[in-house]
């Protein structure tokens, strides 16, 4: 660790504190808004001026997870609501007829997001190790080529990919989306991880080779533990991309493998967009990346400041 030689003065600290707080408010406000909207009624959610204080309700979450039908008042009188969820929808003369597709879409996001993250990091680590340690012919050109796949926005190749996927039967499949996101993330993953692995002195592996281990065992027992920081931060970057990706998801998935991002905006309520349900979906959608990042944050912080810290 290195520390600044001169301590900032009290006034400088105050100014810095205020700036940070201001920035935090600006970035956190939309998040708070979404989370709050998830607990509003539809009418509160579109009230103008926006309501800061409101009666919280789980209506948005109930609507998010269920499909409902409208019933006649007679039917409602004959079949009184049984559960808390049914009581909420009964206000609108509705009954719950089954689960919505949100659960399945969310699961798709989990499978595709984590699946492609795993694959990107797995392949990326092996490739980065090879680039870092072995004599690869045309190494620099290959590394540049790998990077160059990120020099245009991936969506620029949407049409060929769409046609390819249709021909190969990969449209709207988990495998197709995992492969696609892996392909996009792999260049980032190889570059980031190569940087991390370059920093690990080869002497450690050589010592393990001498100690009677094979190259692969040395990689697993000596390199991997030391690359953990790099792997964790790379995984977070890959997950964030795959998890939030919208354009390809809209284009290539519609049912079976549809992820949450294209699904959430299609949640329609009575008489238009059901904003509380959309906000509830968005809130739940934020959670996994947040949890994943918090779990790995120690690694992430070390990863981002890599090179600046004493090893």
């Amino acid at each position, binding site marked *: 660790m290195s520390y600044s030689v001169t301590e900032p003065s009290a006034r400088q600290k105050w100014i810095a504190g205020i700036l940070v707080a201001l920035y935090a408010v600006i970035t956190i406000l939309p998040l708070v808004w979404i989370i709050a909207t998830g607990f509003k009624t539809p009418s509160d959610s579109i009230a103008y001026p926006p309501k800061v204080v409101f009666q919280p309700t789980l209506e948005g979450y109930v609507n998010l997870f269920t499909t409902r039908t409208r019933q006649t008042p007679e039917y409602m009188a004959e079949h009184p609501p049984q559960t808390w969820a049914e009581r909420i929808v009964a206000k609108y003369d509705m009954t719950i007829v089954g689960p919505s597709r949100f659960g399945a879409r969310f699961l798709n996001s989990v499978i595709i997001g984590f699946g492609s993250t795993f694959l990107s990091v797995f392949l990326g680590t092996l490739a980065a190790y090879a680039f870092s340690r072995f004599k690869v012919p045309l190494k620099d050109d290959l590394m540049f080529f790998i990077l160059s796949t990120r020099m245009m926005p991936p969506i620029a190749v949407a049409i060929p990919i769409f046609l390819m996927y249709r021909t190969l039967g990969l449209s709207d499949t988990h495998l197709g989306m995992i492969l696609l996101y892996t392909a996009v993330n792999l260049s980032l993953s190889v570059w980031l991880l190569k940087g991390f692995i370059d920093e690990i002195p080869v002497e*450690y592996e050589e*010592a393990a*080779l*001498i100690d*009677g*281990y*094979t190259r692969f065992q040395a990689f697993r027992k000596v390199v991997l533990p030391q690359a953990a920081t790099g792997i964790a931060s790379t995984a977070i970057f890959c997950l964030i991309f795959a998890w939030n990706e919208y354009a390809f998801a809209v284009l290539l998935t519609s049912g079976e493998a549809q992820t949450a991002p294209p699904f959430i905006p299609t949640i329609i309520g009575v008489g238009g967009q059901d904003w509380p349900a959309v906000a509830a979906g968005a809130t739940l959608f934020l959670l996994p990346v947040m949890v994943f990042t918090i779990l790995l944050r120690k690694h992430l912080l070390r990863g981002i400041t890599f090179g600046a810290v004493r090893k």
Partner: protein
Amino acid sequence: MAEIELRHVTRRFATTALDDVSLTVPDGSFVVLLGPTGAGKTTLLRMVSGLDRPDQGQVLIGGREVTALSPAERNVAMVFQQYSLYPHMSVRENLAFPLKSPLLKTPPDQIAAKVQAVAETLRIAHKLDNKATALSGGEMQRVSIGRALVRQPTVYLMDEPLSSLDAKLRAELRVELKRIQSDLGATFLYVTHDQIEAMTMATHIGVLDHGRLVQFGTPREVYENPVSLYAASRLGQPRINLLPADLFGGAPAGATTIGLRPEQIEQGTGEDSLVRRIEHLGDQTRLHLTFRSHDLVTVTEAHSPLRPGDILPIRPKAPFYFDASGARLI
């Protein structure tokens, strides 16, 4: 234990790190490699260990050709010049790591016993549960020596293993390593810059000059009968004095340089020199002399009465003569 043989080993990088080196390290011997930085000492050890392969030539261990084998298949132990403790492991785990390898698959109770024994030999038993990164440089180096000593490999390769230890510990471990080597009858190939290590531990010394093995022999041979000016400069404390050959007269034809070790300078007879400086080192005294405007250094008895400014007659006694290329003449 086993004999090591290098046959015409050449290894090129941008420079030629090893140039047609042929060398036999006899079974049970302690061979010290000498040479200044960049001479190819580490490269030679890497050839034997299998971490690097020769461009030309062969490596044999115990009579078996191993040139194409991996380090694990050669079953050698090596102490590296720098970095080599696994930073994510404790000292204990570091020492146990070679024993747990698929090569040895030692049972846990034997691992514990061996680790403990080695740790005690190297005086690091109290640090066994430290993280490897929470050690001083000297402690780290002892752990890396320990990692080699827990095994019974075919040969031990050590690259300046004692260089970052303090003088006292170095003296102790020098004796300890030598004892281990004789007890086990182990074959050691050992790199050092330290004169005393070379002279006291070695059964043979190999002198490397820009990748070529220029002399190989017992410490006495290399000291008393160096083949070249370069080899003569490797050993001796204080260093050999190198002066123009004609300074004293009696030089053979073709000689350009005369080499005088302290014991090759007879004091009290001959031509006058001026005592410039005196260093009392305790057990000996170093004299810095000026002889016909050339500086030289020699030793005298501990309680020498000489003082700066005194005149001391000196004369060469069985000196070495070298020609312009540095080769030894007599």
